[in-house]
């Protein structure tokens, strides 16, 4: 099950977010929702899952070929 882990430092109010269990660029979609509300993050790193192919990607490739 995909999950998003947030940590908020009470001393500074700063927040960190980590998306887990989502392969491919779909995790960027989740990040987009957050950046709409908090702005551009100070630091951004893609996890190894980002570079894995998601289950829905092949369907998109098929559509492009048609």
């Amino acid at each position: 099950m995909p999950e998003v882990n947030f940590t908020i430092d009470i001393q500074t109010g700063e927040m960190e977010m980590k998306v887990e269990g989502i392969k491919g660029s779909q995790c960027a979609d989740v990040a987009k929702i957050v950046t709409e509300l908090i702005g551009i993050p100070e630091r951004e790193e893609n996890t190894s899952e980002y570079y894995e192919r998601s289950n829905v990607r092949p369907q998109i490739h098929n559509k492009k070929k048609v």
Partner: protein
Amino acid sequence: MSKYLTFTDVVFKDRDLLVTALEDIGCSQIRQGENLEMGSYYSEQSKQKVAIVIPRNSIGNRYGDIGFERAESGDYIPIIDDFDRSRALNGRFITQLRTAYNERVVKRVAARLCGTIHRTVEGGVVKIKVRY
């Protein structure tokens, strides 16, 4: 010297979440509108036009109102008197507001993802897990 300071490095992008976060940290009197004038209680406090006003003496801000200016980008930028920085919510106004705002952001994200929230507090850190 008492004067209004604008915190350009602290911005809030969503007005509804900002107002809710202000309520969360105890701001019960919130004025909203466009081009609202912040009170000028000392000669050094320059006139400020803002979109949201927390009136003087609401949360320990003895020296002036607290305002939120709407920037051209649409972001809301806090304005607070220099002396009130260390007085409003015992000097923790900005950090408490950021924490409350970010918690509201997480709730909005969870709602958008139709997810469930699991929240814990450990050693000064709020940990929130959203599963969907």
